[in-house]
């Protein structure tokens, strides 16, 4: 038993060393990323959940396996508004680099709580990854450079592991998207298409008709079958690129970002 555990520990040590090499970043880069991250969140994802306090309580249908299920209904408007204002302020502090580590942890925890109530209408939106990665970055030096009130430098081993964990979270999240697709989309039946099932739903019911979307209608459906395989391959491959090295992982991230 001890021999087996020692063997497994050795394998995992090698894997984590590899992951840490792939995901490593210096404090300067992380500091710059922090600023862009904060500006992006303020412009496009500004915390706003107070509206939940203005809808009827009969709409309340929280996820069973969540903290919100312990509550009888939506919180009052004033409480949610206060939470929103606190979170916006925390994002500002993170962006300008004031006690970033503590602010990031508090922001992420408050976001999980308020989002739990936002997703208490019977549907969960999948934005947890954004905040889980931010929570990992709280344990790096992303609040050390380009910061008004810099954090103390953290133990480099902790920072390296945090960055590697962030990479694992991204890879795993994408894997979860590709897993079920792989079970249903991978076949040689040219009379069905998984990609078009996703595309038509967005095009006709959610009005997603921008940029190249109209051109998809002109392509013979059977030719699009290749995209079923491409999507599954892409979404199931991130762990491979994580272990392949920095260049491969960055290329995968770039493709994922451009595609989405």
């Amino acid at each position, binding site marked *: 038993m001890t021999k087996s555990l020692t063997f497994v520990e050795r394998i995992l040590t090698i894997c984590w060393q590899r992951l840490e090499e792939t995901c490593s970043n210096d404090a300067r880069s992380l500091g710059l990323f922090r600023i862009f991250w904060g500006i992006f969140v303020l412009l496009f994802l500004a915390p706003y959940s107070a509206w939940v306090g203005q809808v*009827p309580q*009969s709409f309340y*249908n929280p996820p069973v396996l969540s903290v919100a299920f312990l509550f009888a209904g939506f919180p009052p408007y004033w409480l949610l508004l206060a939470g929103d204002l606190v979170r916006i302020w925390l994002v500002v502090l993170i962006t300008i680099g004031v006690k970033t580590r503590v602010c990031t942890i508090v922001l992420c925890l408050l976001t999980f709580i308020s989002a739990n109530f936002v997703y208490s209408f019977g549907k969960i939106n999948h934005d947890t990854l954004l905040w889980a990665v931010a929570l990992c970055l709280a344990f790096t030096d992303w609040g050390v450079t380009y910061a008004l009130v810099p954090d103390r430098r953290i133990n480099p081993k902790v920072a390296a592991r945090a960055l590697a964990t962030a990479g694992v979270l991204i890879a795993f999240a994408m894997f979860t998207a590709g*897993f079920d697709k792989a079970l249903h989309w991978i076949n040689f039946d*040219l009379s*069905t298409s998984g990609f078009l*099932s*996703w595309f*038509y739903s967005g095009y006709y019911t959610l009005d997603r008709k921008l940029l190249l979307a109209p051109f998809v*209608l002109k392509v013979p459906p059977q030719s699009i079958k290749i995209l079923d395989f491409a999507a599954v391959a892409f979404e199931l491959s991130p762990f491979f690129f994580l272990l392949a090295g920095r260049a491969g992982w960055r290329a995968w991230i770039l493709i994922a970002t451009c595609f989405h």
Partner: protein
Amino acid sequence: MKYPNLLYTTVLSAFLLVPFAIGYLAPTLEPYPAVLLPSGPGRIKTTEDQIDFNRTAIYGRVAGRDTWTRLSPSRFLNPVPPEFFPPLAQRYFGLSPIEPITHTIKGGAVIRIDAHKVSEEEIRNAKQWLRARLNGSGCDDSVLRITQEVATLRRSDGAEIAVRYQNDKVFDLR
């Protein structure tokens, strides 16, 4: 600590895999928060020029007339985002008595969970809220119709060819 990486990997794996397994085996029990992304594994027939979409729709009765008009969920429910409309409408906005939730897990097991009870006052408030929305849409505020339907669209231009109503409920909001 003797096996630090083993311990860390085990804890991290549990944190990631347990919610994933629950979400996969019993989608209605998906936990929050969880590191998951939507899969959308549906497929569609590509040999025909028509495609069918299941949708939940709400209708208001045009004020002063006996015809129904389909209401835009994003406008009617604002500020509730439109993606929350289908599960809300499937529960009839809490207006109907809510039975215990039954979750069927892949493999056949069934779990029953008591849903949150909606009080009479909450139903009254919901009706008042919906009546205000119907008024704002220029509709008769005493009735609201919720249907589960299958819309057939022509694939080439998205024109709606037919609608099949599978479940039709009219609520008296007085």
